[in-house]
Each structure stands twice: as C-alpha cells, then as structure tokens.
C-alpha cells in the first residue's frame, strides 16, 4: 500500500476526526522510530499517515492534584531532563535514559513505546510498577484504562482505530515510596533489553515492605507484573535473606513462563541479579 496522504493536526480533536474518517487505512506517527522501520520493511502499511508530533497538549508533563501526567507525545529526552521527575523518579528517568541512543530518545515518545507494546519496551515496566493509568480520547469522549489492562498481547493494545492515547498518569510518590529500574542489555547504548525490571516499593515505619509492585520486560509476551513475588515481600523486612528468597521465587516464575525457550536457562538465572539491583535502587529512592 502506498502512502497517499499525510496529515499534521495541531489539536487532539482534529486527530480524532481524521482517525474516525480513515480508520484502518491510517496510522499514527509520533517519533516514527518504530513505524518508519516497519513501513520500510513492509511489516505494516498505511495509505494515510496522521502525524501527531505538532499537537502541543500531548507534549507536556504536569502535576495535577496528587497525579503526575505525562503526555503521549513527550520524548524520552524530555523525560530524562524533566525537572519535576529528578531524584524522586530516578527509576523512571533511568528507564527513559536506557532507550536507544540520544538520536532515538530525541524522537521516540512515551505514547509510542506504550502503544507499540513491544515485549522489550523499556518504559512499560516502570509504568506498570507505578500502576499507571492511560487517558484515551475518542469520538465518544475521554476514557481511562489501567496500563496493565491496556496491553493485551505482544504488540497488541486495547485501542480502537478511532482512538488516540493522550497521556499516561500515575500517583505521586511519597517520602516512603520509591521506584527502581534496571536493565540487562548486551551493550551500553542502542541495546534492546534482554531483561528489564522495575520495582515500586513502599516502606512502613518499622522498615518493612508495606507494598511492592514488580514489573518485568522481555520475560514474556509483553511487560507484566510478578504478583507471586510481590505477595511474598509484603509485610516482610527487606534483608539479604528475604531478598534471596524473593529472587528465587522470581527465578521459578520466570522459569515456568519461559519453559521451552532457548533463553530460559539464561534469563531465569540473570533475572535474579537484575531484580536485586532494581530493588536496591527502589529502597534507595524511597528515602528521597
């Protein structure tokens, strides 16, 4: 299919109208770091391209009541440099900084990373750990959906053809809460993650784990939570013993999930090291 038309709306409503009109024949482009490649390789096709990179309202990071909202068109470079996210949201910044290279981070967007739903998407695990909620605009208005429910399979999301992801939001982190991120890539830049793990942690007054949410990437058909391990940690002190036991539980989970895959032997072993570092970062960040 040849590309016949490219539209560059400047408002969300305009984009929705275009999507509503062209439906399946159209594709949304933001940074283009995934779409351009798959168009060139013939993996996807579209006769109409709707370029949302000029929609200003998609490019803001804002604090609203006790929520942080990141526009779908915000680039990873912007996330890395966002004053609002420094220190406390180190886990989120680490994830954004680990995406591709400076050139890719300048173009690629948070919304693109989410909607592309790659199993190796670096930004999805920290958002899952933060229990992020997506705000989606359509011709019938605005709806909200949990990120966890939005991603339905590898590369598949619960987004209709006439809908647009507008922003992703999550609850502000408090003093005793922290987010950690760690990624195993085969080199220091331009590395697709072999494993990436993000840990959200809430520590109680008596230094125990009050709540924990663990999300992994590249360990399943899409980014996902590790509920068994999370439940083990709840109410327990974070000692080297409990972390060791938790890591072993994670190994079992990963082993069961990846059974039959050639990467299982490596990943079930390596995930323990990757998780331990992410957890320690979460502990550290919860003190900020």
């Amino acid at each position, binding site marked *: 299919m040849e590309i016949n038309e490219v539209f560059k709306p400047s408002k969300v409503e305009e984009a929705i109208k275009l999507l509503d009109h062209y439906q399946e024949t159209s594709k949304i482009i933001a940074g283009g770091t995934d779409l351009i490649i798959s168009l060139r390789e013939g993996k996807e096709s579209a006769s109409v391209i709707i370029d949302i990179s000029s929609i200003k309202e998609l490019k803001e990071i804002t604090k609203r009541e006790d929520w942080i909202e990141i526009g779908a068109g915000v680039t990873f470079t912007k996330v890395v440099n966002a004053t609002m996210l420094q220190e406390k949201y180190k886990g989120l910044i680490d994830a954004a900084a680990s995406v591709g290279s400076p050139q890719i981070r300048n173009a690629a967007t948070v919304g693109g990373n989410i909607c592309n739903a790659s199993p190796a998407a670096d930004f999805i695990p920290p958002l899952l750990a933060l229990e992020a909620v997506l705000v989606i605009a359509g011709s019938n208005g605005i709806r909200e959906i949990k990120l966890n429910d939005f991603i339905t399979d590898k590369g598949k999301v619960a987004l209709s053809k006439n809908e647009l992801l507008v922003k992703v939001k999550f609850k502000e982190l408090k003093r005793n809460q922290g987010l950690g991120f760690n990624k195993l890539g*085969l080199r220091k830049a331009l590395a697709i993650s072999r494993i990436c793990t993000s840990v959200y942690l809430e520590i109680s007054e008596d230094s125990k784990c009050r709540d924990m949410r663990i999300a992994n990437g590249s360990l399943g058909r899409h980014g996902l939570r590790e509920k068994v391990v999370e439940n083990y940690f709840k109410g327990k002190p974070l000692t080297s013993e409990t972390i060791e036991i938790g890591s072993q539980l994670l190994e079992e989970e990963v082993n069961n999930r990846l059974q039959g895959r050639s990467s299982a032997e490596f990943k079930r072993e390596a995930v323990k090291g990757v998780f331990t570092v992410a957890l320690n970062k979460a502990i550290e960040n919860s003190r900020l």
Partner: protein
Amino acid sequence: MKKRGIGYASTFYGTGYGNGFPDISRAIAELGTDGNIYIYVGATEVGQGAKTILSQIAAEALGVDFSSIVFICEDTSITPDAGTAAASRQTYNTGNAIKLASEKLRNEIINILEKRYGISTENIEDYLLQVAKLNGDEALRMDGIFTASTTEMDAETGQGNPYYPYTFSVYGIEVEVDTTTGIVEVTKAVCGQDVGRAINPKLIEGQIDGGFSMGLGYGIMEDINLQSGRIKHDRFTSYLIPTALDMPDIDKIIIEEPEATGPYGAKGIGEPVLVAVAPAILNAIYNAVGVRMKEIPVTPERLLKALKVKERGV
C-alpha cells in the same frame, strides 16, 4: 557480585600479502605546471588516514611543505596500482613507493637547477614554480615501484620468508564481571604498539581505538548466530558491535624502533592493533572469575552458564 580481573596478550603480525604472493606498490610523483607536487597512487583511503601519512612521506622525501602536496588516489584511470588497502601494507609498501618516486623527483629538480640555472641547493621549495615553467605544458614525472620481500614456503623443508616485516603488539586489559548476570565490562586498557616509526602519532592512536573496538566486539559481542546454516543475526539490531559508551579509555604506548626497510622506519599497524584484544579480554575474565572461556563471543549467556558449571564443581 562484581569481580575485577586483568589479562594480557601479545602478538606479532606479518605485514603484506605474504607467502610469495606478488606484493607490489606503484606511485608517481609529479611537479605540476602550477608548482605543486602531485602524487598519483592507487592506495585507497578507508578512514585509516592513508592520504595524510602518504602525503607526509612525500613532503618529507621532497623536502617541501605538506601544503604543496596534492594527493590523488582512488581513480584507476589516472593512478598506478598500489595494491589493496589490506594486510596492513599501505604505510610500508606504498609509503616506500611514494618515497622512491619523491626522491627521484627531488633529485631531478636538483639536477635541473644545477644544469639550467647554475644553482646548487638543497632547498628546492623556493624554485618549484621556476622549474615547473621550464617544460611548458609538460609536467615533470617520476615513478616509484616497491616490491615487498616474501617467498613461498618450501613444502619439503618448511623454510621460507613468508612475511616481512613483523609488527609487535601487547595489550593489558581490566574487566569487571557481574557474576549474577554474566555481563563483562571492559573498564581499562593499555596498548603497547611497535610502529617502527610513528609517521603520525594521532592517527596511530585512532587506529588503536578502532582496532580495540573491533577486538572488543569480536571478544564479547559480535555473534552471527548461525542456525542450520542460516545467519540469524543478519542486521545491526541483532549483530551487536560496540558503541562509544562501551569503549574504555585506552592508555596508548607507541614504541618506535625504526624498521630499516620501512619508509623513515615505519611499519603497518592496522591489523596488529586488533589481534591481541580478544585474548587479553578472555585472560582478564579468567583472572576475574577463574573461568577459562574457549568460545567467542563471551556473551553474558555463555559466561553465566560457565560460572554455573564452575559453581557446581563439574
């Protein structure tokens, strides 16, 4: 846990095609009618700096400023064959051919100055335009041919002169191995490189950086992933080479021990700077975690497996 280790490896490398294969470089040095020196040579610049150092050699041999050299290469319709930019041979072989051609041209210019003008001088630079105008539209040209010394091995006796000259190199490399993930990080490196004579030290440092990155990729990253005869890693998203962030700082020690047959003592270092990198990394891994890896690349997957085997005491 992260464990550090240090490893060394050294190598000696024979320059040129070798084993009796004809290894000839040709060059032409010309005094153009505009008073500039034109060097015509088939040597190919592939980023290694051939244009720069071959121009330096011409300037040195002629006794003129670098800026009066016009270097013309990579055009087979007007340049003589100087062989391939391979086998680390251009500095030594083509450098020699250019030096010969340039020396002949210089001698001819000195002769002309004596015979025609009665000037006996070593400083030809000031008279280039004057000499150039003598022949009208005809430029003064001299050629230089250099043939490398190599003989085929005698199959009966095993004797022969496969290569000449040899270049020597040693690497010391420090790694940090994450024993929980199998990730190897090269944290520091030192390279001692015999160069004969450093025609251009900056370019040698550049060659060391380039060779090191290739050796680093060869040692721990670059995997074609051959499965049933098919290359699975058939593009650079899967066939990983090092990025700038993967490179450590390299302490470079340039060792000058002039080679009598080289142009101003220089030898080729293109490949020599690469050869010892991967073995030094593997030795450093052994030093760090006590595992002797015998297959490259040492990916985290392979190393973690080997560490597990060692742990179980198999």
